[in-house]
């Protein structure tokens, strides 16, 4: 049986950063294919490596800022995730792509072969206590559909 891990990342206290949490909430209500594990992480970074366990497929879900219109749902193979240039000053500065590269080098047996980022383009990341914006809320079901397609 094929196994999959869906890892949703975000902070529902900070406007559009809550996208990952919203997707997680939707997926919790759905019966996912057998062999699929659904996990929510507040932060991604290297903590992502604690969650992977040699699944066939890893889907990371998070809000992104890639310069598209708010609400755009990006499906990126992990190698297409932009590289972060400046060196990090804290553990927060380590992104999904960096974590996966570290995983593939250090824990090849644990790191899934197929890895996708489902990124929901957000507009607002600096307002505490605000709900996700309208275009992002509208994108949640789109992201959920895309994730279900990846799981097929």
């Amino acid at each position, binding site marked *: 049986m094929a196994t999959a891990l869906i890892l949703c990342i975000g902070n529902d206290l900070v406007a559009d950063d809550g996208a990952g949490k919203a997707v997680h909430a939707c997926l919790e209500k759905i019966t996912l294919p057998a062999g699929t594990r659904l996990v929510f992480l*507040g932060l991604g970074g*290297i903590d992502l*490596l*604690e969650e992977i366990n040699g699944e066939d497929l890893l889907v990371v879900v998070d809000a992104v800022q890639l310069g598209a219109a708010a609400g755009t749902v990006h499906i990126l193979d992990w190698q297409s995730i932009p590289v*972060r*240039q*400046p*060196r*990090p*000053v*804290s*553990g*927060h*500065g*380590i*992104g999904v792509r*960096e974590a996966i*590269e*570290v995983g593939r*080098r*250090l824990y090849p047996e644990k790191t899934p072969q197929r890895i996708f980022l489902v990124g929901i383009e957000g507009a607002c*990341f*600096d*307002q*505490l206590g605000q709900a996700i914006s309208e275009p992002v809320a509208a994108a949640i079901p789109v992201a959920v559909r895309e994730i279900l397609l990846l799981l097929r």
Partner: protein
Amino acid sequence: MSKTIKIDPVTRIEGHARILLECDDAGKVDEAFFCVNELRGFERILVGMEASTLPQVTARICGVCPTAHHLAAAKALDHAAGVEPPVAARLLREFMYMGHVIHSHALSLFVLAGPDLVFGLNGPAATQNIVGMVEAEPELSKKGLRLRSLGQKINETIGGRGIHPVTAVAGGISFRLTDSQFERLQELTAEAVVLSSELAGRTKKLLFDLFDANPVLLDKLNVPSWYVGTVNGGKVNFYDGELRVIDESGSVVTEFDSRDYRDHIVERAVHTSYAKEVFINHGGGEHMYRVSTLARLNVADGMETPLAQAEFEEFRRNFGRPCHNAVIQMYAKLIELIYACEKAHELINNPALRGETRVPATFRGGRGVAHVEAPRGVLIHDYEIDSKGIVRAANMIIATQQNTAAINKTLKEAANNMLTAGDDEAMLNGLEFVVRCYDPCLACSTHAVGRMDFEVEIRHGGRTIRSLRRK
């Protein structure tokens, strides 16, 4: 009519480290200032809150050292309530704390500063991150990351949460170990001790190679100062003990209980930064001092645990007492990492850890003061609590603010050496490296952008004459 007052904390925690260089007529740097938006108003926010919430609320001050704030607040509440937590509570708190120190030191050493060790100061920018580090040193990185993860697991098991712990309370800790947790943690700490000793050799080799390749580091970053750190029976201790002060020649000036900190430490607001500058007040003079790993090793006579003690002896033979060089901080951190692993293993194997973990604590009105050694240095919490258990005043002495004066002095030295070279990029790199050696806690203020937004402003006669910014 109602009025909405919106306080937007995001703008106030914008991650922006700025360096101001004030030049004289001859173009020499007269004064240097490292400026941080560090103050986030917590000392005001806490006023009016229920004192019993302090350990949870203050842990939120920082995602880098939450356990330090959590425990400093709990200990201050013990003091305010006039209670002594049971032995098991004390041991569990210290055990949780060792987990935190392992996590913090492993992250700092192998993830954040690691690329400096592996690639030196002039390595290509693309390798200056964890990915480059992992490629170049897979075994070291794997062990370093595993240690970080073990520390996190310890902190999470005892503290109830991975990042912001919740279990320490006035009078003890609201947690007891189950048999299976007890056994599991014994295995994890045993693994940590082995890993830390395996890491030591390679890490030291990298450090010494870095010094050999960059003699200027050992030569130019020696800024004499006083040091303050916690000792218990003369040995380094993170959770409890007396604050020992040594002068720039290494002589012990005084030792005091953190409850009397106001008799020894003076705080002063400065016009260039949100962080107040702090000095030791002694013999009618104000003395610049430093805290953090190097300071702890400078003030201590030794380490409590065998592997760390052996490393400590080598360290002291090589660098003397006190060692004034900020770069050696990384070496000191390695020794403390080994200590924290050994200490955690010792604590979890202490049967007294399974005893009663709480005594009742009530507030009758009065002051509560306590401290811990945060990974980055002395952290003091001071509260005035009324008879209803409400916070009436709060003051905190934070590690980074105690180092600000020394950072400024080192920057001045470094800038005078580098300004003349005329290479802006080299100067930015050099000054950033200086700041990183002091390991200031900017992480809270920079996590939204995830990079050190770094600017150097050169001024003369109150006018900005040049501004350097990383592109």
